[in-house]
């Protein structure tokens, strides 16, 4: 094990940032040693403030795009992972794991086969299962999907934090943190979603909001939760219980009166038990059990490949940007080439002239990088809000060390390379510039 491996992650990140900046700092120290050309650099910047500002802005935009994309991608990854956090194991009829995950975790249901009552009973009565929540989809109220489930799952989803109280009959509902209904409000669910929703299909199914779940940062914040018996009831199905126990809410359900469920969210107290349950309920014809986290991981792996390609493209783009920056510096320095010639005519050493031109570029690059960093954070935050609003997956895109490393590398390489245009300017003949 190397010393590097023994360092805490934060120390490694800080050390890597410092290492990435070392080339630029070394060049700066070598070029500026003994000189303080800042008065001249400031004078040149002020003289050509329009062109300098434009140049800073162009660098900022290029940096901002790189940083924003990196932060956004990580934020999306974290957000989706967090959304699946409460869904340890999902059991459904055999089919596409991705479709079931999209329905159960992200509330984007599609047509799915149902698990019957016997299968649900087997799951819910298993020794290792602490929660077995059947789900019922299909209805909505405005932009909110209406989901039928059990009280235990609703409590588990909100970590027990419910403003108001839990439902006590089939006419009561809980709302997610982002649902535009207040406790005490009444509503009537529509059948279906969006434009295709049938608003009169469940006429008379008056429901009252009795509680609000704490925010979860998942699409469930936009959902309205009902006792699953209520959903089954308004669709004219059996309510899961024998007639003599028709008023019961929640499990146990009677297999003979169980209308079926597309997915059961299962929770076990022990981690090992989840693996055992997945193995036990993975049956070719009957059931499919999977970890949504694992499905997401597969998805990330595919996205990871795309990310690698994008990273390569970003590297090529940044190289082009760096080349453009160097060319821009060279062109910008043409604006003050007479003053450079003056310094040389007055006997300024070559290194001092190099220091002036390099410092000018360093100020523009650093200002552009810092501005780009700020805009990048702002843009990523804004984009995260848009994604959150669109998907209800809580996406946050805070600045990460990846972006800091990316920026440090870009600034360092470009600062080292900006010696090139400075050196080229130094080789320009003095007299034609003085006569210009």
């Amino acid at each position, binding site marked *: 094990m190397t010393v590097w491996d023994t360092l805490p992650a934060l120390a490694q990140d800080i050390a890597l940032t410092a290492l990435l900046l070392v080339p630029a700092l070394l060049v700066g120290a070598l070029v500026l040693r003994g000189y303080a050309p800042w008065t*001249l650099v400031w004078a040149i910047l002020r003289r050509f403030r329009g062109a300098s500002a434009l140049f800073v802005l162009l660098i900022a935009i290029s940096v901002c795009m790189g940083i924003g994309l990196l932060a956004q991608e990580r934020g999306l990854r974290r957000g989706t992972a967090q959304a699946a956090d409460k869904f340890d194991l999902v059991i459904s009829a055999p089919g596409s794991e991705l479709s079931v995950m999209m329905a159960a975790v992200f509330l984007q249901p599609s047509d799915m086969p149902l698990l019957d009552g016997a299968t649900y009973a087997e799951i819910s009565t298993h020794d290792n299962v602490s929660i077995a929540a059947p789900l019922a989809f299909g209805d909505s109220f405005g932009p909110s999907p209406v989901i039928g489930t059990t009280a235990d799952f609703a409590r588990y989803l909100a970590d027990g934090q419910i403003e108001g109280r839990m439902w006590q009959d089939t006419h009561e509902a809980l709302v997610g943190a982002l649902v535009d209904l207040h406790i005490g409000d009444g509503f009537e669910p529509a059948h279906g979603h969006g434009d295709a929703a049938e608003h009169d299909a469940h006429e008379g199914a008056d429901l009252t909001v009795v509680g609000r779940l704490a925010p979860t940062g998942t699409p469930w914040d936009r959902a309205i939760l009902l006792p699953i018996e209520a959903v089954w009831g308004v669709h004219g199905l059996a309510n899961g219980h024998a007639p003599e126990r028709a008023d019961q809410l929640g499990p146990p359900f009677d297999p003979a009166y169980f209308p079926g469920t597309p997915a059961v969210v299962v929770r076990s107290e022990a981690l090992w038990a989840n693996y055992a349950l997945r193995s036990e309920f993975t049956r070719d014809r009957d059931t499919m059990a999977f970890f949504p986290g694992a499905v997401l991981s597969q998805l990330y792996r595919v996205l990871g490949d795309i990310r690698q390609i994008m990273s390569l493209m970003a590297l090529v783009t940044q190289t082009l940007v760096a080349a453009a920056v160097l060319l821009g510096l060279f062109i910008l320095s043409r604006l003050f080439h007479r003053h450079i010639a*003056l*310094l040389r*005519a007055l*006997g*300024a*050493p070559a290194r001092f002239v190099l220091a002036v031109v390099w410092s000018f570029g360093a100020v523009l690059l650093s200002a552009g990088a810092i501005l780009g960093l700020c805009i990048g954070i702002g843009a990523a935050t804004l984009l995260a809000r848009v994604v959150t609003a669109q998907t209800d997956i809580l996406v946050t895109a805070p600045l990460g060390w990846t972006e800091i490393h990316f920026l440090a590398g870009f600034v360092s390489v470009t600062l080292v390379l900006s010696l090139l245009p400075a050196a080229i300017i130094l080789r320009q003949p003095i007299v034609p510039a*003085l006569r210009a």
Partner: protein
Amino acid sequence: MGLPLSITGLTVRASDGRVLLSLPELELPAGALVGIQGPSGAGKSTLLYALAGLLDAQGMIRWGDEDILRLLPGKRTRFRAENIGMIFQDFLLFEELDAEANAGLAAMFRPRRERGAVRARAAGWLDFLGLGRQAKDRSVASFSGGERQRTSIARAMATNAPVLLADEPTASLDRAAADALIEDLIAAARGAGTTLVAVSHDPALIARMDRVLNIVDGRATDNRASAA
């Protein structure tokens, strides 16, 4: 005290080999004031830049004991920094800086031990040239042409250079400002014993020189002594 100048077989050629300037011989004593005149394009400024060691040329240009054409680039730059002050027709100042910063420009790149002295001399020359009050008040962008040229004289004198090369120092000034500047320039050069070589079309400046060199078609065709 100024440096004496000795030129032998000086030839400056263009990149295509054409002779831009030919000066077989010239001897100037230390502290001499020399005017160079001639039609435009004759090679006056070329001579000035050659004297500053800014052009590659054949022959010998000896300032004191040093033939600057034989010096390697780095040493030539150092020689220029220590011995030659330059004044330009359009001043070539850093417009955003004040007069004191412009006049003390060399303090930014001279050895650390000399920087304080350069700044002090710059302030002193600005005072001598009548710019003491506004030296720190405002940027030279707000200065008149005469004030700017005085600032550039102070910049040239601040390094205690024994040689002053001036390229059309009065060309951008009106008559009154030009006359005042001539007085100041002559007084500064005489006072410090500086060898002054000034390229000029201005008869008023030429008339104040110890010696005048005429250049036509790249050749020095006439030397005459004039009263100092």
